[in-house]
């Protein structure tokens, strides 16, 4: 399982990369593998705001649907359009080319609630996954 050290992780299997003011958000390698071959991605428009734990997008394989929950609160400043056009990028490169959105954080303190790579790995084990 690929779990980059420089990222933060959520219990809903999203990753966050942040400079403290803005954040890039995607789904983890584990999430993409569990979904299988992804055929559809829906992302929010620029300017949309959401609270932590609200859903901001959808990722679908042929026979399953996963809502994507916001790991932190924020306002969308950019969505990754190529992923919408070519969803397989998400399977191939979830941590780089497969990023989903960039947001301006509304409450940077929320970053502290996220897990480190080690903690996330332990969390996956604990979940029996």
């Amino acid at each position, binding site marked *: 399982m690929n779990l980059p050290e420089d990222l933060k992780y959520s219990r809903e299997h999203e990753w966050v990369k942040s400079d403290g003011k803005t954040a890039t958000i995607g789904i983890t390698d584990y999430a993409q593998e569990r979904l299988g071959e992804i*055929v559809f991605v829906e992302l929010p428009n620029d300017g949309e705001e959401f609270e932590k734990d609200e859903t901001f997008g959808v990722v679908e*394989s042929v026979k399953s649907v996963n809502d994507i929950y916001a790991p932190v609160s924020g306002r969308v400043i950019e969505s990754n359009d190529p992923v919408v056009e070519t969803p*397989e990028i998400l399977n191939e490169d979830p941590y780089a080319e497969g990023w989903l959105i960039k947001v301006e954080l509304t409450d940077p303190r929320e970053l502290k609630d996220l897990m480190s790579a080690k903690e996330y790995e332990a969390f996956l084990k604990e979940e029996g996954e």
Partner: protein
Amino acid sequence: MATIPSTVTTQRPPFNFDPTAHAQELRPFYIGANAADQQAMLEALGLKSLGELYGHLPEGIRFDGPIAVPKVLDYEALAKHLWEVSLKNNIPEVSFLGDGLPQYAVQDIVPFVCGLRGLTTAYTSYQAEIGQGTLQGLWIYQCVMRMLTGFEAVNASLYDRATALFEACNTARRLMPKRNTILIAESVYPGDLAVVETLARETGMVIRRVPINPNTGVIDPEEVRRVAAQVGGDLAGIVFPQTNSLGCLEDVHALTDLADELGVKSIAVIDPMQLATGGLVPPAEFGSRKQGTTMFVGEGQHLAIGPNFGGPGVGIFGIRFNEADKLSIRQTPGRFVGQGKDVEGADAHLLVLSTREQHIRREKATSNICTNQAFVALAIGASILARGEEGMAASCKKGHDSAHRMADILAEFPGVRLRFAGAFWNEFVLETSQDADDLIEAARQKGIHLGVNVSRRIGDGNNRSILISFGDIHSPDNLQQLVLFFTEQFGIGDALAGPAVKVPAVFLREAAVGLPQIPDAALRAYYSALDALNVSPDDAVFPLGSCTMKYNPRINDWAAALAGFSQAHPEAPVADVQGSLQVLYEIDHWFKGITGLAGVTTQPVAGAQGELVALKMFQAYHADQHAGEARRIILIPHSAHGTNPATAATAGYDIVEIKADATGKMDMDHVRELVANHGRQIAGVMVTNPNTSGVFETQFKEMAELIHGVEGLVFMDGANMNAIAGWANLGAMGVDAVHNNLHKTWSIPHGGGGPGDGMVAVSEKLVNYLPGEQIVLGADGIYRPVPAEKSIGSIHRHWGNFAHKVRAYAYLLALGQEGIPQMSGVAVLSARYLYQKLSQVYQTIPVTSAQDPVMHEFILTLSSEQFRAINTKTKLTDTQIIARMGKIFLDFGLHAPTVAFPEAKGLMIEPTESFTKAELDRFVEVVLAIHALVMEHPEVLLSAPHFTPVRRIDDVLANRNLLVSAQLDDLPVIPNQALRIPPAQLHQMSVEEIAQRIVAAHEAVVPMAHAG
């Protein structure tokens, strides 16, 4: 009762098949296993009688004696009876009834495809490799609808126009989040509006009607603007017809522009027959900029089949899907057929966009609808191709020309005038000096169904307006008869023709549709080839669990096609449809007998709609009996099919799940806890029994008592009635409402996905709330429809899928009170027999105890060691292994068991009662051979299926690159890959030989398979 001239001959039509040529057709009760077979199977299980199979059902819930249905009729007596009932309908020589179900000629291709059993008896094509016949037929439907309407995405059909309209309104709400109001022009058909309003209640959707202007017969766009201003920011969409319920053409351009100006969704109601070349402007070009509406809906029944007393109908639903709008389609309901490729790169069709549907998204699905009207939609495709570009244009023009010629002539009679001065296409309203009902009756006496009294729709206080409709069935003589009738009634007309009404050019289509013109012989050859691409329960065990794929008797189809039934129009005077009403009356009574309940509605056209009707009645009951209480909760067991939560959500309820215990049944402690916690917030419960794993919920009655203790109501999902019909008394179990899938237990064909049927029976508590009308038999011997006192409204524009009631009626008479428990008893016996043989090799889910034996179906799986061993060699996950094992069944010429439901790693098998012991034994041999094959040669899973018309279809590619319609220039190519072996040939081979061929075929397509 006065007898009128009727066109139905007095000679009984011969069977269109030879009953003696089909072994299943003449067997007692259509049961496969004869007495000796049954005896042998009982002995194998150590049992003495069928009754012992029901020994675990608690005391007090079993029927004590014969159920209240008639005694069995033998084959000849059955045919005679069906024929005689059909003769009680008077089918007049001339009919001008339309009212949203206009009358066009049934093309010869329709009875032809109705005789193709591979197409009529198949299941929904989830196993696409053996469903190409149905899938290609539906693809053609989607393509021709695209060509007629201009909409890129027309789904594979919904129930009928009314439900399509409700679903479109819901789609508009999803596309306009947080907005709930829909404006509907009151000029849509009243039957449709009633359904939409019934379904909208308590869902948060607000319907605002915009009234008809009684002077013009159409909606004033300025009135729409005025109402829209009142609604303000809550407005989500505007609904308007093209030809309205008074025959008048609405100003579709102004209304479309107005919706755009207001920034809301527009939904047009259209008739595709009016959109042929030379006809009206298609909805994709409505608006001053030809921008088109957001969605359109329409009725399709008359494009293929006769009136059939109102059903099965076909709901046509379209939305845009192009570069400018790729996402709206994801908010729509229903099935879409897509075009993709198999692993060899050949064109193939499959169901796409499934993640919107209830079987995956449950309560978050876009709709609770599971089925479509697949077979009728397929027949519409065939009919449109049979007419072709020229024939469609000719039929469209003929309706228009006859209507305009007759309008000119009839309006000249003294005391007769065209009620409205505006444009119309193929129907118009006449106002006369006579009472409309009297005039309709006078015409009836002359053998003419003159039209529909629409005085109340106009609302001008008089009763003198009749809507007269024209199709392509009217001969010059028919029109002459109409003129003669008016001459008799109103005297000689003024010979001077008045000013003819012309349809303004702006309402006409510009470009030709461009439909292909296919010679009749080529079309028949094509559909025969499609027939051969499917598999049918006619040929072998069709083990699809939870779907009850039993034999569909041919005599049922013969009966439904009798002219007396198929040509009866639902708007015909009651005196002329006594045969149809008798069928409904009797079948209602029999279902009361079968269920042990007090009332029945025949309106629901599918299981999911039956569920919804039940919950709408729950809402009405609580609003009436427990006013002021907020009963928002429906309890649903964890094991439920996705439709249950989807239906509860569609009805507007919150869902609370009941946990499963170790055996997979309802956890009764949890039920008690939920009742204690939620009390009178509970509206009711939805429980499938036997449950989705095929186990009888023995504590159902205790559960019902707990729910009744807080005055909640109990819905039993009757999907698995085939296990218990004639044995379990649902009334005694505490059921308040149950639906019966006529397409499962009661033998109507699945049609490749529909039309289905979902009649609902209810307890005394709910009788007053039933939808539509019930039939009562007067002391004068006349059947009359009467609405329930506190009816929830209406769920179908007429009587549901009437043709299916005829089929079930015929089936019930062929079974009688003796045959029904035999039927379900042998279904359980067959399943138990298979289970005993197969569970010696396969693992099962759940591991059943003596207290909870399997009923009519059971679930097989592999051990974790076996999964691991296969995974090591193939890298397939457990769920992939199960799905691919399903594909191996296809290589044996069979349909697959149900894979991935209700258990992700399960193969659910339901044999039904239709097969002989020899057929069941062959099936056992196959299923054991599959086990041996995947353990010894797991690599074959990677390339399966091998012998189907197409190889495994790449569903990932097809869902990434969605293609749901195309311009159709010619018939699609019939797939026929090199390794294909038709099922009939496979059934002649030994099981061992097929297994060897599978291994050889794998090596042929994957030459390097053994390299590692």
